[in-house]
């Protein structure tokens, strides 16, 4: 959007004013997240910049909140929980979701709309309602406050993302490739692992990442279904914010922001690779 030569003074003012507004909104989006990073190195137990920090005095900065985090048994347990629950839920939802997407993208699938509606319902139903339903049901079959309960709940919440991303990948998938494989004598399993799987892998991986981040970031269901033993990072942050808010939360938040930057990069790379493979080069 370079400025045309015929712009009048008023046009020019608007041209620059619009940019200022836009960058202000970008600032609004990024600043709250980025501001936590320097604040997490605060030497004082405050949520604001101290005089020492502003004058860049090294004494104003410290790693004490990171030490606090690493030294805390409950935070460490929550990290172990978040990763083990997240990975287990991701395995369940990716396996079931990929299979279902393969079925759904076949033209002879009966009642496709209805089934798709049911399968993506965990994404639409407000979390508080899902959490309440699971709380009652899991209590009645005695898996509330167990790892199994939390994993199953998170797997259910994560599957819509796998189904959607893998189905989207399969739209560009050339079905004649599997027919050719069958024609050349490959069994269905062999043609799946040799032909289909490598081609839809980017979709499966990004679906799995979505499922993982869903579980990793999920708190409402954890609040209702998990016990003390199954507390995850968001659950620990929740009590941290509600009970005694300390800058340790900022240290945790900084680490989580770095994790999300890493995940974002992976998903973006996968998306580009997928587009290249399907011949849809980005403009």
């Amino acid at each position: 959007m370079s400025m045309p030569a015929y712009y009048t003074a008023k046009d020019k003012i608007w041209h620059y004013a619009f940019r200022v507004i836009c960058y202000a909104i970008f600032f609004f989006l990024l600043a709250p997240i980025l501001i936590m990073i320097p604040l997490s190195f605060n030497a004082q137990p405050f949520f604001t910049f101290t005089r020492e920090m502003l004058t860049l005095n090294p004494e104003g900065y410290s790693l004490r909140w990171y030490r606090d985090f690493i030294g805390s048994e409950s935070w460490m347990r929550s990290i172990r929980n978040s990763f083990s629950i997240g990975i287990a839920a991701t395995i369940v939802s990716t396996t079931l979701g990929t299979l279902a997407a393969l079925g759904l993208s076949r033209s002879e699938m009966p009642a496709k709309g209805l089934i798709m509606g049911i399968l993506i319902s965990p994404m639409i139903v407000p979390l508080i309602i899902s959490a309440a339903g699971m709380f009652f049901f899991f209590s009645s079959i005695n898996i509330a406050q167990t790892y199994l309960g939390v994993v199953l709940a998170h797997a259910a919440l994560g599957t819509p993302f796998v189904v959607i991303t893998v189905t989207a990948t399969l739209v560009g998938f050339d079905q004649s490739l599997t027919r050719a494989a069958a024609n050349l004598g490959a069994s269905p399993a062999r043609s799946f692992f040799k032909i289909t799987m490598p081609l839809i892998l980017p979709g499966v991986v990004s679906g799995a990442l979505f499922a993982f981040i869903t579980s990793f970031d999920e708190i409402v269901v954890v609040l209702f279904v998990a016990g003390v033993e199954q507390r995850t990072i968001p659950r620990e942050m929740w009590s941290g914010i509600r009970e005694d808010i300390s800058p340790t939360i900022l240290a945790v938040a900084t680490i989580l922001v770095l994790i999300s930057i890493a995940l974002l990069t992976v998903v973006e790379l996968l998306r580009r690779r997928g587009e290249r493979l399907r011949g849809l080069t980005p403009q």
Partner: protein
Amino acid sequence: MAMADATAQTGSATDSRGRLLTSDGTPLRRALERANRRRKLTAFALVSPLLAFILIFFAFPILQMMWRSVDNPQIVNALPRTLDELRDWDGRAVPPERVFVALHADIMDDLERPRREQRIGPLGVRLNYELSAARSAISRTARDVPNFEAPFREAFTDAHRLWGQPELWRVIQREGRPLTLSYYIAALDREYDEFGNIVKRDENRRIYVSLFGRTLALRLVITGMTFLLGFPIAYYLSSLPMRYANLLMIAVLLPFWTSLLVRTSAWIVLLQQQGVINNTLVGLGVIDDAGRFSLIYNQTGTIIAMTHILLPFMVLPLYSVMRTIPPSYVRAAKSLGATPWTAFRRVYFPQTLPGIGAGGVLVFIISIGYYITPALVGGQSGRMISNEIARHIQQSLNWGLAAALGSMLLVGVLVLYWLYNRLVGADSLKLG
């Protein structure tokens, strides 16, 4: 003859009625049907594990929860004889002695059950939803019942004054059915009057209708804010070359990918009384120390934090629609004499409407069930219907009411989703 030989050799033939046959002699039509059926079954077999999983661990629990909003077994289970005797009671005066005899028998029966199966406890809890103090009336009386002697009417009314009031008996008679609408009536701020009509509650006891209204109003404000902020940047991004747009898109995607708790705590840090914004303003001398803004633990905090959290959901659909609008349309409008404003309003803006609709409904649907952010930064005035549901499940333990509120919320969301589907199609839900 030569032709018949030829067809036999290639494996296809016709039967006596002239139908085409496959090589093993079955009619072609049936073979095709069978193959189709098998392919259908394969497709369904692939989907069925997930379908079963979702039905068992997701759909069934929700239906079961919705069932709780009408399920009403407590009184029927605890007082079968009393309900029998009450059937033709007119609801005016205190019931006759025979009702109290039945009540005495019901309670004596119940006291013989093992402690964990006693039905008196749930009965008291259930009656208490309709009439406060009913629980203590039940539990206090139940202890003394074994010592009661006829006439039971005096014995009961002596034990607790509530037994002598037709009000309690009306509740027992009215709710002595296996299904009830009373949770929905309570969720709509209504109650029964003494004639059994449904009337509005007293002004100071109305909670939920205004809470639904406030939830909706706040959601509309938040959706409007995301539109006001999202439209300019989506427009700006769509006008940039792809390379720069992708780079700036990080500003939208990073919040999208950052943990909800992280973003919420970021706003707590910024907006607190001793937080970054207030401190900066005091430091710059804009406000004095006593005049610090209270930006959090109220509606303002909820609106700011939720606008920030939901903005990406508005920008992403808007951006993908705006990318597809050819810039030549606006140029054509301008060359035909339209001012930039007219060209924008009459030519560009109407083409962005699908994106606005998609983004708006998406933000609205997501925001309406939000629980975490209002619970953490909302304070009292920022509390939403979902917080009330959680409170009834975890603290007040009125699960029927929680289920009724939840079912109403769910139906609202499903209607909105149906609208969204009509508007843009569910397939266009894009991720990242």
